[in-house]
Each structure stands twice: as structure tokens, then as C-alpha cells.
């Protein structure tokens, strides 16, 4: 039986203190109800725990965490998965700005849209390859300064029919990692020097692997997603600003 916590009118400090105490006691499954705006939920937690959150968790959900699996039945605010190291965040609604900021490992699956600067400064190291999958559309600066990891943008489950799949300055300053976009993306949306490329067979396999997990999380049909071709955006050099100050 998961431990239930009613977060109504609970300050974020008290909520996190309670959560940590229960984890220290050995509890591994939690249901958090009536969450509204409490910051830093599960921040820095290094245990393999599972949290189901009902409501709107506050800023920096799961920041620095190493292991937990967080399922959000609702939207998240800014900074979800900030510098997270391991584990997974599944968001059944939309997410705010700077999702997965400086993310080092683990996964973030968002069903619908995300805000600005998602995946900014993501990085990867040997077997640590963070992944963000976005079912809806993204704002400007997606994958800005990206140094590693994978972002997959589907543009399918969006509340903004009038908006393009991604904003402008996509991948600006990126020097590592890959962004996959379902459908097309105009070159003017991309950061300086970036170009959309065709997928290789390895890319296809990788996409299928990550997207089948995504489909399981949201009960979606993988073939429907794969019907449309993807493009990928990769850095053209690992030092895009290498010569900026040299002349």
C-alpha cells in the first residue's frame, strides 16, 4: 500500500520534511494529493521511490534527484527535473519553462506542451544520457547550449493549434546531443549554423526504443507516432563559439 499524503495547505518545507522522513523509514511508494505550488518536491532524493502527484507541483520538481520515479497527474511549473541525475518524471499535462535544465541523466516524459528553454544545458557522460520526450509543442530556445542527451519533440498533443511545433533559436549554441523533431522544422527556427538532417537506421531504432516507453506511459500507439518522418538536429561542431573571441 502506498503512503498517502494530503498536501493541502502544507508548506513545501513541511511536505518535503515529511516525505524524507517516510523515505528514511523505508516507505517506497507515495501518493501526494492536493499538491498546489509546493516547490522542490523530492529534490535531491537518492532512493528508488515512486511518487504519484495529484495537482500542480511547484517549481523545481525533482531537482537534483537520483532515482525516484515521479508521475504527475496535472501540469508542472517551471524547472521540473532541474539538474536531475537519475530517475524519471512523467507529466500527464503540460510543463512550464526550463524543463530538464542542466539535466545529467534520467528521463522526462511530457504528454502535452512545454514552455521556453526546455533542455537548456543538458549534458551526457558515458552511459548517462538524459532524455526528454515532449508530446506537444515547445517554446523558443529548445535545447539551448545543449551539451549532450536527447530531446524528442512530437508536436502532436498540443493545446496551441496556431503555434509552430517549436519556437525560434532551437538548439542555439548546442555542442552535443541530438534533438529529434516529428515533421518539419524551418531553418530560420534553428540556432546559428544548425541544419535539419535525415535519420539513420540507428536513429530510427533509438527513436522506437524511447518512444515505445513513452507510449506505454501514456497509453499511446507507437505506429501512429512513427507514421510521420522525423528530422534530427545535431551540432555541426563541438565548439560552436570556438572562434568567436579569436578574431
Amino acid at each position: 500500500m502506498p503512503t498517502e499524503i494530503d498536501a493541502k495547505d502544507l508548506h513545501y518545507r513541511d511536505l518535503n520534511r515529511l516525505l524524507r522522513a517516510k523515505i528514511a523509514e523505508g516507505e517506497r511508494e507515495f501518493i501526494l494529493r492536493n499538491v498546489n505550488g509546493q516547490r522542490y518536491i523530492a529534490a535531491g532524493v537518492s532512493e528508488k521511490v515512486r511518487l504519484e502527484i495529484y495537482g500542480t507541483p511547484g517549481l523545481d520538481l525533482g531537482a537534483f534527484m537520483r532515482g525516484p520515479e515521479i508521475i504527475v497527474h496535472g501540469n508542472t511549473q517551471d524547472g521540473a527535473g532541474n539538474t536531475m541525475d537519475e530517475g524519471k518524471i512523467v507529466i500527464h499535462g503540460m510543463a512550464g519553462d526550463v524543463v530538464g535544465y542542466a539535466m545529467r541523466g534520467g528521463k522526462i516524459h511530457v504528454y502535452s506542451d512545454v514552455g521556453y528553454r526546455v533542455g537548456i544545458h543538458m549534458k551526457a557522460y558515458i552511459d548517462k544520457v538524459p532524455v526528454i520526450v515532449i508530446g506537444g509543442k515547445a517554446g523558443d530556445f529548445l535545447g539551448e547550449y545543449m551539451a549532450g542527451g536527447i530531446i524528442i519533440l512530437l508536436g502532436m498533443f498540443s493545446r496551441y493549434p496556431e503555434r509552430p511545433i517549436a519556437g525560434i533559436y532551437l538548439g542555439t549554441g548546442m555542442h552535443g546531443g541530438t534533438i529529434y523533431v516529428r515533421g518539419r522544422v524551418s531553418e530560420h527556427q534553428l540556432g546559428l549554423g544548425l541544419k535539419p538532417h535525415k535519420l539513420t537506421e540507428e536513429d530510427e531504432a533509438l527513436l522506437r526504443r524511447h518512444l515505445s516507453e513513452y507510449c506505454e506511459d501514456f497509453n499511446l500507439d507507437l505506429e501512429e507516432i512513427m507514421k510521420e518522418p522525423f528530422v534530427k538536429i545535431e551540432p555541426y561542431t563541438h565548439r560552436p563559439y570556438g572562434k568567436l573571441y579569436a578574431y
Partner: protein
Amino acid sequence: MDFLRGLSKDISGCGLSGVIHRKGELIPGEVIVKSICCQEERGNGLGAGFAAYGIYPDFADHYALHIMADHKKALEEVEELLAHRTYMAHEEPIPTRRTPGIENPPLFKRYFVKPKYEGEVREVCGPEDEDDYMVSLVMEINTRIPGAYVISSGKNMGAFKGVGFPAQIADFFRIEEYRAFIWTAHNRFPTNTPGWWGGAHPFTILDWSIVHNGEISSYGTNRRYLEMFGYHCTLLTDTEVVAYLLDLLIRRHGLPIEVACMALAPPFWEEIDRMPEEERELARAVRTVYGAAMLNGPFAILFAYNGGLVGLNDRVKLRPLVAAEKGDLVYMASEEAAIRAICPDPDRVWAPKAGEPVIVELEPGVIPNQRSYLRGPERGTGAAACRYPGE
């Protein structure tokens, strides 16, 4: 070194919240207090405030002057000036209550006035200049009377602000006793200007009020530009320029809100180059003519007037803004949680795009002296305006 550590900052950002009832029905003050208090961590106790529209129905045709004064003498000087320049229908202290944590508050009084502006002068200049008359009166009080500041000067509206957390300022000004069809609220985290009573948000002129999260690095440019038109900044805070820019651009120059917002947060030249021709020409003209009105730096603002509530982000969205709708109510706030605290089940929640205003006007003819500044969809907006999703 200890004292240096004491000066170190908590990292945070200001919090905003606003709500409007599109049919002009009145919303109790507790609602906005609950919403802004949900964002407690966004401020640090150095400022909070509220703007309320529709709170003085008995004096709806009078300008309600909220005056903040450091001492009695300043108030007396204000009253002497008002006696010369205005007809006063009513005056009273703004009701306050002794609140723990609020120490040495200034004096607050409100005056309901009409400009002494009639006879030949009025025939020649026309009645529309009453607003200009009031603007210059506000500037005169702010610049000439030491220790006196006009906190708000619009009809049927008022601003309440001071140094404290939102709950304290709400308690101090007895916000729960007011009912308004538009509310905005602010929780302040001052970054590079002093946390004093006059520097709390909202900033106002006439019925314009603005609350702001961010930093306006173009303050100097904006301020000098505004001085050419008779606006003087006296409140030592960057946000003050926005209130005056709105008055200048929208009321005096007659720019529709969409175009004024484009002047404040213009698209990049690269984006302008990609626009269709008509839009491109407008955008070029706005950037050329109103370069000095552009707000540089990160911001999310909410501004209101007798007729509408507008939310606007800087063009690269360096501050958060969320909007939601439930029936005739529209909400905007820094955090979605602040909206859900007072509207747990909105019909629609969305994140406005950078530089695209969310403009919500009241239905026509629901309040006295109602103003509408929309350019309207039939004329095309020119500016990329998000009036509403789906509209």
C-alpha cells in the same frame, strides 16, 4: 565577514496575480489575497500591493487620489494644492489596521476630486483634457511636495501598497473589505532598487496600474523619453516608467493596446523581416518611432485599466506568466498554482507566448466610464496579439 553574509540575497523573483470578471461582477478581496499568498516564496517581505477596480461606485465620476505622506505637513500641503486645483466631493483616511510586522507606516488618505477646469478653458481645450490635467497635478504633487506621493489617481479604482509580505499588506489595508471587477496583486523581491513604501507595486497613473516581475534595464532611456512628455519618475523603481508609457502610448497617442504592447516588447528585426508586408511595415514603424519606449530586460507584467486586464512578457520570456479561464473569469499569474488556489478547476490553462499580450476586456457597457483600447480583430492586429486562444 558575518555582516557580509547577512547581506547575501535569498534568490527569488517577484510574484504576480490578476483576475478580471468580464461581465463586471465584483470579486471579493479575499480571492486575490489567497492567490498572491500562494506565491509567498516569490517575495521577501520588502513589498506587496493590490490594485482594485470598481471599489468606489459612489464616486465613480471623481478621480480617487490615494495619497501617501511621510508626515502631516505633507498632507496639509497636498490639501492646500487640491483646494486650489480641484472640487473635492469627499476625503477620508484610507482605513488601515494595526498589523504585526508593519512598523512605522506612512499616512494614507484618499480624496475624491474633479478638476477645476471649466469656463473658457474647457470650451477651448475640450473635456478630454481632464485626464491630462490630472496627470500634471499628480506630477506636481510628486515632485513639489516633499514627503507626499500619489499612489493612485484613477476613477473608481485604487492602489494599496507598502513594505511587507502580501498577507501583511492585505491585512494592513483591510483588502478583504473591498470588492472589485479587476484585481491585480504583487509580491515583491526588490533586486536593485530600494524596498520602500513608494517602491512597492502597483505603479499607477490615472486608472492605469501595473505590477511587474523582472528588471527594466532600459529604465534610464525610458525615463528620459517620458520626461519630454511631462512625466517625472519619483518613486525610485524601474516599473514606474511602464505606468507612464502606457498612459502616453495608449491614452495620449491613441495606439491600440496591441500596438502599444508591440512597442514595449517588439519583435526581433529578423522576425520582422519574415512578416507579411503590412504587418512588417507596422512593426518597422513601431520600432523606429517608439525605440525609446522599448522595455529592455526580463519582465512579466500585468496592467489594468477601467475596462481591461493585460498580461505581457518580454520577447524572450525571461519571466513566467500563466493564464486561465473559467466562465466569465480570466486569471493571470506567475505560477499556475496561484490560479488554482482560487480556481481549482479552470476551463482552460495556457502559457502566453513571449511578447504576445493577453488582452481581456470587459463586455461593452458593463461599468461606468468604461474604456476600450483594442484595435479589434476586424482591422487585423499587426502586432502578434494573443487576445485569447481560439478567438
